[in-house]
């Protein structure tokens, strides 16, 4: 009898699911990349950023522009924010070379661009014009003593790189020695040659294509997409392996038929074609249905509004489906084709066929379970590693800790917070502890770097336990109170400053006074929020602080949201016509990240769960087939007195022989893979071996179910039936 080898439909389903998931993952990825491409195309893909630590002068600019491969060059200097006394706005100036607008493709709303002779003229960003002049066309007027020659057209918000120019004022760079931090380069010919030419002329620069600059803004999304694509590729490989496994079983199942066909003249390629066709059919049909399913899910998602960007993954999926189908069919088909016809003819009964062994099938079932359980452990590592990472970002704070500061960049002049505001803050109901801090940029003596930001903290700081002090200790209340010369350093800064040496106990010279380093804090995220590399007692530089901010600890009964609004309103009252203060909740940011992690992990866990299900199907297929081949033997054993329970045990043992080693292999593979994955995600490396038991439990469960179920069905056959069926 020709049986559809157990589980053909299950395997087809596996291919369908794997393709659908791959289709979705690639589609989402392709959608994002297309969006980045469209951003890049707006500005032109032939734009490169060339950056040097020591900056560039006008001579460098000319030298670069004269290279054959370079079409045009513009320079971008540093920006500086000017507080204009008596005005409600702030002006941030950016020094640029005359060609800047042309090279950066910035259209003007009115007026003209720079010429090389321009001095004391400005071009306004759109928002600057709106804030300062409203609806009046300002071209020809003066701003801060400089003539306005043009206004940039508004830059859309999705243009992450250029949109800041809306808030800025462009001024022509003068003729100093080093003017520009960054050069914008339009290349003429091939990117590779242009790069080589630039590197040749300026060996110490870094060159970044504009596409890479835009990609960085989508780094998190891209990383998540890569994870999704990688795991769905894993799923697809599993599905391919299952097809190969099914075909191997099918070859054994039909070995005698192969013998008959060979006897009447079928060539080896004829036989091979038989199985390749079956494999391609399974993968092809599964691939087409799966792609359709994936596309349908796209539509559903876009209807629900959760995924606005959809790419077109068929260019990748269809060839992949074909290749995987081919690869999955080749080995089994080759096995079938090279079978000796006389031998194949001798495999007339199921029992005879059980002699020929199912080595390949066992290996594939193992492979599938190993990949799936490895994926499970990788997921556990990802979650555990991320938890550890998030836990390391801040000290033991919760959402009751707020940070109140002037917005760092705004067209509206920021409120100039001062120590006196401390008292006012304390009067707000719900505020428990307030610590003031001042910050300013200082060149640290003895290191060759631009000025860094130092923050002075006053009493109350130590009680907040805001930072995660990784090494040494935090500043104590006593040191803060007395203004002792001690310092707490950001880890990245300490690394720059002291290299591999232990920074604790070293001294640091600030404003010619020595400070002793007592601790190092993790600044992977706090750097971004806190914006300071060195923390010292406030008293040390009293009177020298440039700007102030406050750490607020709210009472348990207070509602943080209400308090935030109250704080913003308070400062609007004290400083009318200024930008609103920023109230940041560090812990809320961690919570947001955690939410993102949970979303990502749950999506990946669906994939891993599917992978494990596929593994179970693979084992189920294999054990069913093994038992089918051994039906007669089992019947004879029953006649000889074996209980049903013994038969079930036999099936479970067969399955465990596959799943348990596979679990260990998967564990080994994923432990090897954890390091690269965590590096890829920029996480500290950690392997949560204490969770390894989950893998073992999972593979044992798979073994018990996938082996016990078919064995139970076999055990229900009457011994007489079993013997007859085995003789088929």
């Amino acid at each position, binding site marked *: 009898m020709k049986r559809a080898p157990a589980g053909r439909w299950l395997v087809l389903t596996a291919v369908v699911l794997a393709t659908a998931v791959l289709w979705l993952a690639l589609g989402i990825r392709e959608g994002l990349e297309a969006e980045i491409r469209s951003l890049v195309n707006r500005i032109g893909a032939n734009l490169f950023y060339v950056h040097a630590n020591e900056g560039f002068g006008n001579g460098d600019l000319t030298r670069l522009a004269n290279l054959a491969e370079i079409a045009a060059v513009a320079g971008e200097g540093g920006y500086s924010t000017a507080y204009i006394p008596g005005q409600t706005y702030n002006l941030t100036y950016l020094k640029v070379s005359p060609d800047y607008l042309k090279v950066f493709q910035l259209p003007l709303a009115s007026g003209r661009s720079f010429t090389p002779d321009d001095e004391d003229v400005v071009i306004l960003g759109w928002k600057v014009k709106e804030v300062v002049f409203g609806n009046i066309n300002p071209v020809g007027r003066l701003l801060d003593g400089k003539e306005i020659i043009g206004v940039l057209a508004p830059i859309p918000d999705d243009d992450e790189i250029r949109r800041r120019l809306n808030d800025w004022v462009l001024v022509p760079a003068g003729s100093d020695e080093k003017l520009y931090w960054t050069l914008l380069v339009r290349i003429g010919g091939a990117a590779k040659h242009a790069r080589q030419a630039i590197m040749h002329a300026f060996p110490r620069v870094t060159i970044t294509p504009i596409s890479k600059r835009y990609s960085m803004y989508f780094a998190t999304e891209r990383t998540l997409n890569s994870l999704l694509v990688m795991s769905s590729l894993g799923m697809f490989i599993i599905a391919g392996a299952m097809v190969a496994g099914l075909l191997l079983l099918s070859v054994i199942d039909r070995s005698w038929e192969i013998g008959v066909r060979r006897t*009447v003249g079928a060539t080896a390629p004829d036989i091979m074609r038989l199985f390749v066709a079956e494999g391609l059919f399974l993968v092809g049909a599964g691939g087409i249905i799966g792609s359709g399913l994936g596309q349908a899910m796209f539509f559903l998602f876009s209807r629900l509004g959760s995924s606005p960007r959809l790419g077109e993954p068929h260019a990748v999926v269809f060839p992949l489906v074909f290749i995987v189908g081919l690869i999955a069919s080749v080995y089994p088909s080759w096995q079938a084709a090279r079978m000796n016809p006389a031998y194949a*003819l001798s495999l007339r009964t199921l029992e005879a066929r059980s002699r020929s062994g199912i080595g390949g099938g066992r290996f594939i079932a193992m492979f599938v379970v190993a990949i799936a359980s490895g994926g499970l452990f990788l997921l556990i590592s990802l979650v555990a590693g991320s938890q550890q990472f998030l836990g390391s970002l801040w000290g033991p704070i919760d959402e009751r800790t707020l940070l109140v500061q002037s917005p760092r960049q705004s067209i509206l002049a920021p409120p100039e917070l001062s120590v006196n505001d401390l008292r006012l803050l304390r009067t707000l109901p719900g505020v428990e502890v307030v610590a003031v801090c001042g910050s300013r940029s200082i060149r640290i003596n003895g290191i060759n770097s631009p000025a860094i930001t130092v923050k002075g903290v006053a009493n109350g700081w130590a009680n907040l336990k805001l930072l995660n002090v990784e090494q040494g200790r935090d500043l104590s209340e006593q040191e803060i109170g007395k203004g002792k010369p001690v310092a707490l350093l950001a880890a990245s800064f300490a690394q720059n400053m002291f290299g591999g040496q232990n920074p604790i106990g070293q001294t640091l010279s600030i404003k010619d006074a020595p400070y002793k380093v007592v601790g190092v804090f993790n600044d992977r995220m706090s750097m971004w929020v806190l914006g300071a590399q060195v923390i010292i007692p406030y008293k040390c530089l009293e009177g020298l602080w440039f700007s102030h901010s406050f750490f607020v600890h709210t009472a348990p009964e207070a509602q943080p949201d209400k308090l935030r609004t109250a704080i913003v309103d308070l400062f609007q009252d004290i400083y009318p016509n200024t930008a609103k203060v920023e109230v940041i909740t560090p812990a809320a940011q961690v919570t947001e990240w955690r939410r993102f992690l949970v979303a990502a992990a749950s999506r990946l866990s669906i994939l891993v769960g599917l992978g494990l299900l596929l593994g179970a199907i693979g084992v189920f297929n294999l054990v069913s087939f093994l038992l089918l081949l051994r039906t007669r033997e089992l019947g004879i054993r029953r006649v000889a007195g074996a209980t049903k329970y013994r038969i079930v045990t036999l099936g479970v043992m067969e399955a465990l022989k596959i799943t348990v080693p596979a679990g260990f292999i998967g564990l080994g593979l994923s432990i090897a893979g954890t390091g690269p994955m965590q590096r890829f995600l920029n996480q500290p490396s950690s392997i949560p071996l204490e969770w390894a038991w989950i893998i073992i439990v999972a593979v044992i469960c798979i073994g018990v179910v996938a082996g016990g179920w078919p064995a139970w069905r076999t055990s229900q056959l009457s011994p007489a039936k079993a013997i007859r069926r085995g003789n088929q």
Partner: protein
Amino acid sequence: MIELQGIYKTYIKGQLKVPALRGVDLNVTKQEFLIIQGPSGSGKSTLLNLIGLLDEPTRGELHLFGESVQELSDRERSRLRGRSIGFVFQSYNLIAHLKAWENVAVPLYYAGLNRKDRYQRAVAALTRVGLSKRIRHLPAELSGGEEQRVAIARALVINPKLVLADEPTGNLDSKSSRSMMEEFARLNREGVTLIVATHDPFVASFAKRLLVLQDGVIVAANQ
């Protein structure tokens, strides 16, 4: 037409070597009706498998239809099997999920005939063995004798030069056996060369030439 020189066949099973044929020399000319007799395990099936190109000898020379078989590619061997040699087995070896006519037509498929021609020739072959009323039956719906006749039809449908039969009557009663052997004798008269392996003395009585095999060597032969 068939020439065997110093044919050895040894089955290797792990450490164990089972010599099935140990130096067989044999010449079969066109239109012979050769019966191979011998006790169980003497190597009859092995010899037929080698002649039918289902297996390869460990050592020795085998010429079939004037060609040295060792030099043939798999494709050429398959072509010879499919177009010149018909097989009949003790266990019929019909494909269970194919109807009678489809079973008969399988060799024609590999010979590259279209479906219509395959059907016509398969029906003709089935009619010849007296099964014109069983064309659409599955093997499970046929008696043992009918199944064997389908198997014969499959061997004949290609108009073979050579028919190899291994215990063709092993599962048949004496009446079916007789009609089958009569069919074989008629074939032989039409010019087909026949080699039949058996231990049934009744079958042996149809032989033009008889060969006795024992422990892998030919121990007796008569014309």
